[in-house]
């Protein structure tokens, strides 16, 4: 029954959302075109798009927005009287609906998106090697098999982002989709930003306390990356637990 419902929902979502997924996945193409137009109009002949500082940063930003807003676009209907009734009244258990929603918005669609981004980036580098000097795939490979420091920002962005980012951000997006009734995207974004700032402030306060004692524990020092990932994983799981609760208990 899960496969039947999952395939049904995936087909429905892809039919409605293939264009936004495709457009966001082709970010490297749009970036190249926009840069080309700008540089040509500025009469700059010798230019290229760099690796992590330009393409990587833009792809990262687009990814965050995509992972946050796509679940809202897809599952925001749950709180709508017309579409939500149809969703809730479908003779499928709440557990299956939840599992399917998580699989689609946290795993499948992000995977398709990442493959599109990496694929279009590699294609641009192949077609225009003088303009795209380093691809995101190359940066990932260097990070995996190279000599990068596991605690460096670059390592975090390139290794951990494709794995943990969709899980964390999509879970927050899914939570926002079922939590808020109106202006879901705006409220989810603002809540996420405020939560992030609050956690950063908390980290600063705790670090300061430990520094005053002249001691920095591992989880705040060299092991901070993993502390941060564990914290985000727990937060994501809490978001998903709330989503499950809302699918079961929503009243329209």
């Amino acid at each position, binding site marked *: 029954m899960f496969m039947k419902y999952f395939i*049904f929902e995936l087909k429905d979502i892809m039919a409605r959302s293939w264009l936004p997924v495709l457009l966001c996945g082709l970010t490297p193409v749009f970036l190249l075109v926009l840069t080309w137009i700008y540089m040509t109009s500025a009469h700059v002949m010798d230019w290229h798009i760099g690796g992590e500082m330009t393409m990587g940063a833009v792809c990262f930003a687009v990814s965050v927005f995509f992972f946050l807003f796509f679940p809202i676009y897809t599952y925001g209907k749950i709180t709508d009287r017309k579409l939500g*009734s149809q969703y809730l009244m479908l003779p499928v258990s709440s557990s299956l609906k939840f599992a399917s929603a998580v699989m689609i918005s946290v795993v499948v669609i992000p995977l398709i998106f990442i493959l599109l981004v990496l694929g279009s980036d590699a294609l641009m580098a192949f077609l225009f090697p003088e303009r795209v000097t380093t691809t995101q795939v190359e940066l990932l490979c260097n990070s995996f098999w190279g000599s990068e420091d596991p605690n460096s920002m670059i390592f975090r962005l390139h290794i951990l982002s494709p794995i943990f980012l969709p899980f964390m951000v999509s879970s927050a997006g899914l939570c926002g989709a079922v939590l808020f009734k109106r202006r879901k995207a705006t409220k989810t974004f603002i809540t996420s930003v405020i939560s992030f700032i609050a956690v950063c402030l908390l980290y600063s306060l705790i670090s300061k306390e430990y520094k005053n004692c002249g001691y920095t524990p591992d989880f705040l020092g060299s092991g901070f990356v993993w502390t941060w990932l564990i914290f985000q994983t727990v937060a994501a799981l809490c978001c998903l637990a709330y989503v499950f609760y809302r699918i079961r208990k929503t009243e329209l």
Partner: protein
Amino acid sequence: MIKINNLGFNYGEKVVLNNITMTLKDGRIYGLLGENGVGKTTLLTLLCGLKNVKTGSIDIDGYNPYKRLPSFLANQFYLSDEVAEVNMTASDYAASYGKFWHKFDIGKFHELMSVFENDPSWKMNRMSFGQLKKTYISFALSCNTKYLFMDEPTNGLDIPSKAQFRKAITRYTSEDSTILISTHQVRDLENIIDPIIILDKQDVLLDATVEEISDKLFFDYSSERKPEALYSEMTPGGNIQVYLNSEKKESKINTEALFNAVHAHKDLIKSLFRK
């Protein structure tokens, strides 16, 4: 069977349903009538499981609707007054969604669409409201569920479609199906609803079969005005008057006149039909 026991529901401080108790038997087409805001839609959404009761209970064949178990949902269909525009053809919609109701009949769906003179190859988000409504009515009837809850199904339908709807309800539903249709356009559903439930603010004014109503009330279509009439109204053909059927004469029920008579004499009607 649907058993409603001391049901209460409120939106914040506004109490909509209070201490409602009734039993809806299998195989009947119930008409749920009432003024705007008395809780018809609320009752339907409670019965299908979209809302949870605040007090009391609802039991439908041993299920609590709010739990939304698949086995319960597969045996019922809720047609809302506002229907969603979906970006697919009616035919594709029926084929995709219908497979979740184990008794869904795609042939019946196409037959009903033909009865309603609706083209299943049209995209639903390009249909007019009336066409969309007819698509969903066709789908609802094709699910062949035991329970069918319809909220204002004739809203948005043109006059010929209303007649087609009446025919479809009587011809395309099985004898053991229980249908609950809420409406405030009583003329649209005259002759097909039996029993009739009339809701008032936080109360049930009437819950009786057509036979019981005919037994206790007389509907007089003559032009002679009777002073003891509970309700009277001039119509193009004469008068319609409702009064107590002390002589046990037979008459044809006029649902609109019944509704007005019930509202004009709430306590009398309640005591007359008390079970």
